[in-house]
């Protein structure tokens, strides 16, 4: 990987240049909550001033730009008794600016499922390859436990990655298109002072909050399958799926079809679903394999922390704790994992 530095004024020029050409999506403050805390989202922006790179965390992850909540998989047109199916994939490039390490790590995990595993998804591949990603280092965020799951540092999966050094950014370049884009503005070779400043900056970013102890979690989950911890937290679950919607890695979905009123055309739509929704595991004939709230909640954790680990040697979770923040009932991974650990010790 190449490293360079870029002055903040030059970086602004670069973003302006990008915006002239392509759609740019970046963290933007959209308001404040009742406690006065700023709410940020990844949204399309048209001027540099709309962007807030000093954001703590966005309420939603950037997942929707790769796995849209609703996506048209194919359309069908009918002609008498015959039909023709049409499929199209995303073609337009776009820029996703200001992603934190956890969100890039989330994409790397999704890559494993969607691009490298059996049946790679051309829908995902198109979106992923057409997205130019600029990441940025950040202060640790409250409630996050990215370090506990090894998602606080990222080494690939982006085009450019920035670390704030005051008047300039330390830039890691991870792709030739990243290099080409940077060559449009003035960049400098790194000096020893830059490297020193970068290392100091990284040191300062080490999490200051208490993070859950995740050691041996996959085995613990197996042993604690019947634990009362699930009943305790399951009783709180509203089965609303909000956790999975804000999650940067939850990718479960359902497929449905709609036909036009005059039967001339139809489309097949993929809708992200959540394993906490009541009918997630219902089968034809009405049997529901996960009729209870606690079973559904448990399986969300099993998929994230055990099932995925079994297949890919790492959890699906990146420790952003967006699910914990969005949950009205206060269900959150750090507390559940702590409860399970205590249950295991007892």
């Amino acid at each position, binding site marked *: 990987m190449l490293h360079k530095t870029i002055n903040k004024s030059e970086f602004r020029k670069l973003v302006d240049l990008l915006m002239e050409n392509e759609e740019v999506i970046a963290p933007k403050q959209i308001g404040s909550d009742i406690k006065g805390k700023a709410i940020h989202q990844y949204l399309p922006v048209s001027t540099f001033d709309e962007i807030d790179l000093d954001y703590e965390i966005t309420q939603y992850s950037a997942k929707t730009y790769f796995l849209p909540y609703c996506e048209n998989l194919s359309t069908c047109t009918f002609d008498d008794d015959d039909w023709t199916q049409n499929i199209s994939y995303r073609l337009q490039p776009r820029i996703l600016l200001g992603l934190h390490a956890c969100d890039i790590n989330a994409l790397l995990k999704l890559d494993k499922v969607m691009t490298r595993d059996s049946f790679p998804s051309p829908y995902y591949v198109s979106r992923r390859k057409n997205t130019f990603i600029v990441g940025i280092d950040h202060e640790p965020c409250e409630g996050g436990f990215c370090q506990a799951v090894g998602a606080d540092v990222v080494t690939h999966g982006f085009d450019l990655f920035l670390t704030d050094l005051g008047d300039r950014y330390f830039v890691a370049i991870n792709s030739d298109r990243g290099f080409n884009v940077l060559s449009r503005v003035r960049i400098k070779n790194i000096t020893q002072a830059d490297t020193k400043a970068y290392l100091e900056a990284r040191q300062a970013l080490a999490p200051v909050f208490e993070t859950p102890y995740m050691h041996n979690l996959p085995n613990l989950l197996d042993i604690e399958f019947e634990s009362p911890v699930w009943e305790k937290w399951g009783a709180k*679950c*509203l*089965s609303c*799926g909000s956790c999975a919607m804000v999650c940067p890695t939850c990718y479960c979905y359902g497929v449905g079809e709609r*036909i036009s009123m005059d039967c001339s055309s139809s489309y097949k739509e993929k809708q992200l679903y959540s394993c906490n929704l009541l009918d997630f595991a219902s089968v034809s004939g009405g049997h529901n394999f996960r009729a209870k709230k606690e079973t559904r909640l448990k399986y969300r954790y099993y998929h994230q922390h055990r099932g995925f680990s079994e297949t890919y040697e790492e959890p699906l979770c990146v420790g952003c704790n967006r699910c914990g923040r969005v949950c*009205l009932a206060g269900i959150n991974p750090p507390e559940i994992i702590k409860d399970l650990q205590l249950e295991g010790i007892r």
Partner: protein
Amino acid sequence: MKYLGIDPIKPKIAVFDFTSCEGCELQLANKEDTLAGFLNAVEIVTFREISSAASDDYDIAFIEGAISRSDEITRLMDIRKKAKVLVALGSCACFGGVNRMKNAYDLNQANREVYGKIAKETLPVRSVKEIVPVDLEIHGCPVSKAEVERIVQHLVWDIPYTQPVYPVCFECKQRYATCSFDLGQLCLGPITRGGCGAPCPVGGLSCWGCRGPSEDPNYEEFFRIANEYGYGDDEIEERLNFFGGFEGVR
């Protein structure tokens, strides 16, 4: 119009209004881009809002409105006898709707409040299913035309229809919205049936529960959350009673 060589049933449809604002009926006549297809798929024999013709020969009866007078009961029972399929259209028909708030007051007092000295005959408000068996309920105040169309398609092809079971929150999150609770509003999203696309919370007005409860709602936790956010029992009660879909849950 055929599909895979299968001929659709072109059902004869009748639309009737009872105690209501007729807004749901208006929804049926809305959505210009698909209206032609809709009208082609069915044969409308009685629908006061689009035609003065009326016939007693129909397969599907859409009932809009709640039941609040004795003559309405007679009329509804007569429709039930004639219709093969009876559909409750909208929150008033499904739960009694906004009208149901009347039931919390003394009937005479309510009568005086509305009609003054010229009192009208009135009964406690009831939903359609409290009078006659209902085959299908379409929730919402007003109903969404897209949902009505989907249901009508199922009727036209005579195939079973399943409602979304999840609460409004799910679709609200799919539209990238900020939680109403975080913005300082009490919201019934967590316990209300989704399928509407969450237009209210996405537009800045929290959910009032017009679609009634989702499947297996977690009331206990919801009340705890609402209290925790500082909403008193009275305020929650008032919200729950607004459309009548949550009667008796608290």
